[in-house]
């Protein structure tokens, strides 16, 4: 990103960033400018959003698909979205995904578990470049495990941009590591404009962890693409009962419980089969159980699954089992129900909020309770009292859609943009009053350093000399929504298969 084409800069005539002092809050496009772009759409504010997280494609998971799907739906609604993440191996620089979704893979050092290092300072030049180039108005950071997300929030506040944060996970309070992480979260969120959580339990958790005012925390659940998860009863073998488990094989997903459930139920029911998709350190537990009870023909371990194969595995089963020990939202049970399976799950975290009682059987996280729950569902299955998969699918398909998520997130952006971004003195005061004397002092100091560093960068590379990127919707949005209408929704599928490389 070092090279800058001095010629051929595309500046729309009413670029608000040029008429304002550099560190002041950037406002939205005035309504007349959005009208100038035409298309006779409703006069909603158009936001230019930068999603920042360490976790994005080619990494796979809940956060990654959330960012991707939300971005696609926001683009569909006429907003501009760019994504910033760190470089994944060879995948560095700028890439374009479906519908011109631009992704910056920034060369930042990965430290642990795909999370970058944080110094609160060093990522400013790169992120500032992205924010200025793309004329970003809202910075939306994802996941509390992502150091880059917290860095981006820190810099965005320094640059006077509005900030939104989405927390995807639950965290405890008791041990040393959570005390430290919660302190960092307090610091990071104390002056963030709005926070989004994926379930009410997650909201309670985040409010307590970061000592927040609950009014600035919204609950917007995750969604599942119902067209990806359709039932197919012909794929089932009805001479036996198949229990499907699709999850990473790690402690937090309760795989140890699964290792107790398998022998308990297999000795009682001789037509019971387990189909387990996923990989992880706890695979050894399942292999030992399979070895000891000689269940090789009845417990199949499929190993890591591609996202596109998950549905093919799900439709082979009658019952979907989730044994998680903690979960903020749990997309897996929605996917299972969407494929028409009977869902049995542990009652932990936000799971009780996700599906209505007729679609899920909730159990305590113990082997005996889960076995009892499974037994009732097996009995129901044998007596044929379960609704047909198509009925279950039609109930689930409207519950969680990405369009609904995007609509609600849009309102969060509207709200966040109406709030002021704290100027430096007020921000320092907020840090010191909210985060305790010691952390408050340290982070106030870092905020001042960040501010001075921004000043230096603005002197070195003034904002008006940084090229404004051409939107993927073309100059003046001439390839805008009407152009995109021709493209079918099926292009939106996660994971983004083909992407074009920016030269």
């Amino acid at each position, binding site marked *: 990103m070092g090279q800058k084409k001095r010629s051929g800069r595309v500046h729309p005539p009413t670029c608000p960033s040029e008429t304002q002092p550099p560190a002041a809050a950037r406002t939205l496009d005035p309504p007349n400018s959005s009208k100038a772009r035409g298309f006779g759409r409703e006069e909603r504010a158009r936001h230019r959003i930068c999603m920042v997280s360490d976790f994005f494609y080619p990494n796979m998971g809940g956060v990654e698909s959330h960012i991707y799907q939300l971005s696609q739906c926001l683009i569909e609604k006429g907003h501009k979205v760019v994504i910033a993440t760190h470089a994944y191996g060879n995948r560095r620089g700028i890439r374009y995904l479906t519908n011109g979704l631009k992704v910056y893979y920034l060369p930042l050092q990965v430290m642990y578990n795909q999370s970058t290092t944080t110094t609160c300072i060093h990522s400013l030049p790169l992120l500032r470049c992205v924010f200025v180039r793309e004329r970003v108005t809202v910075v939306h950071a994802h996941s509390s495990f992502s150091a880059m997300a917290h860095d981006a929030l820190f810099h965005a506040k320094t640059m006077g941009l509005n900030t939104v944060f989405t927390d995807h996970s*639950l*965290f*405890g*309070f*008791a041990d040393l590591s959570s005390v430290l992480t919660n302190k960092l979260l307090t610091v990071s969120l104390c002056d963030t404009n*709005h926070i989004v959580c994926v*379930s*009410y*339990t*997650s909201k*309670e*958790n985040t*409010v*307590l962890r970061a000592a927040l005012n*609950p*009014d*600035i*925390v*919204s*609950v*917007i*659940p995750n969604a599942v693409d119902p067209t990806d998860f359709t039932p197919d009863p012909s794929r089932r073998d009805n001479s036996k009962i198949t229990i499907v488990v699709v999850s990473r094989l790690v402690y*937090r997903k*309760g795989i*140890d*419980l699964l*290792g*107790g459930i398998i*022998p308990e139920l297999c000795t009682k029911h001789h037509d019971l089969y387990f189909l387990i998709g996923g990989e992880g350190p706890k695979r050894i*537990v399942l292999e*030992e*159980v399979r070895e*000891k009870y000689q269940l090789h023909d009845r417990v199949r371990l499929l190993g890591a699954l591609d996202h596109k194969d998950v549905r093919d595995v799900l439709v082979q089963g009658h019952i979907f089992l989730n044994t998680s*020990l*903690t979960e903020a*939202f749990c997309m897996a049970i929605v996917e299972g129900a969407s494929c028409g399976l009977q869902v049995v799950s*542990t009652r*932990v*975290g*936000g799971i*009780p*909020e*996700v*599906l*209505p009682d007729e679609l899920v059987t909730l159990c305590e*996280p*113990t*082997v*005996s309770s889960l076995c009892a729950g499974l037994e009732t569902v097996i009995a129901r299955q044998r007596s044929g009292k379960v609704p047909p998969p198509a009925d279950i699918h039609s109930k689930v398909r409207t*519950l*969680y859609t990405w369009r*609904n998520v995007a*609509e*609600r997130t849009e*309102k*969060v952006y*509207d*709200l966040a943009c*109406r709030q002021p971004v704290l100027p430096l003195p007020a921000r320092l005061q907020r840090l010191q009053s909210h985060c305790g004397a010691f952390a408050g002092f340290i982070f106030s100091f870092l905020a001042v350093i960040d501010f001075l560093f921004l000043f230096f960068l603005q002197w070195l590379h003034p904002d008006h000399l940084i090229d404004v990127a051409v939107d993927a919707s073309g100059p003046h949005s001439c390839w805008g929504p009407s152009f995109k209408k021709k493209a079918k929704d099926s292009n939106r599928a996660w994971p983004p298969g083909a992407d074009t490389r920016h030269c």
Partner: protein
Amino acid sequence: MGANSGPGASPCASPVGPWRKVLYARQPFPDNHVDRRFLEELRRNIRVRQYRYWAVVRETGLVAQQVSCVAVFITLWSCMDQGRLGPSVLLWAATGCALPGYGLYEMLGGKDRERPRLADLQSAAVFLAFTFGFSPVLKTLTESVSTDTVYAMSAVMLLAHLLSFPYTQPSPPGSLSLNAALFASVCLASRLPGALHTFAMLSWALLVFALWPCLLHRLRERAEWSFPWAAGLVCAGGVGGLGAVWPGGALLLSLALLVLTLACPLLLVCLQRHKDNIHGPWDEAEIREDLSRFLS
């Protein structure tokens, strides 16, 4: 979602029914709605143990006697260093302590014994033979290191021994604490005048840091009443012994022991009131059952 279901919209004038904590139903409340039921499942201090002062004092006896053990060891070393005690006297004393101690340990052990006595004798013989054979080597091991460094290292290692001692499960002593203590004793022993001195010192180190915690643990298990007496005896021995070589040190030690056994428990019991531990549905579920039965 209705028009006023976004965050920031004014709460609906006539909400249909009460708010429910579910995500699957579209409810006529804004997304940032904070209900009366917000945080109603929050629980505080559900697994907090209430301590009684004298019970805690009794438990601190273990810490106090371990500190005193270190003091006893340093006393023995300094007596030998100054030539007040000969190595043969110490070796006889060690035998005199070890044999009744072993007898007591066996007596309290009960009948379910897996290890034959011959094995015990064998390990003792191997240890003594090797230490005796290697004591000239150990004696000259740190010759090239300055005495100050050796003392500093010993002090740090004895401190590490006290810090890493597994007070909750003292038998057998944890490997880090035992190794730190033996390292310190080798350092100190190498500054003594002769090879037999070194041998005597190491034998005592083993007695004090390895065997005594085992005996004490068994005393606590099988004859609860004797534990305070044993701990008190060791403390008195530590203070008394240190008083013979360094009266100021003895004063400091007795002060430290008093603070440790009387003031620290008071502090713990008082601070217990301020404990604020929060639990709720977001906590990671614990697996309390023993799942290894499915595997073994």
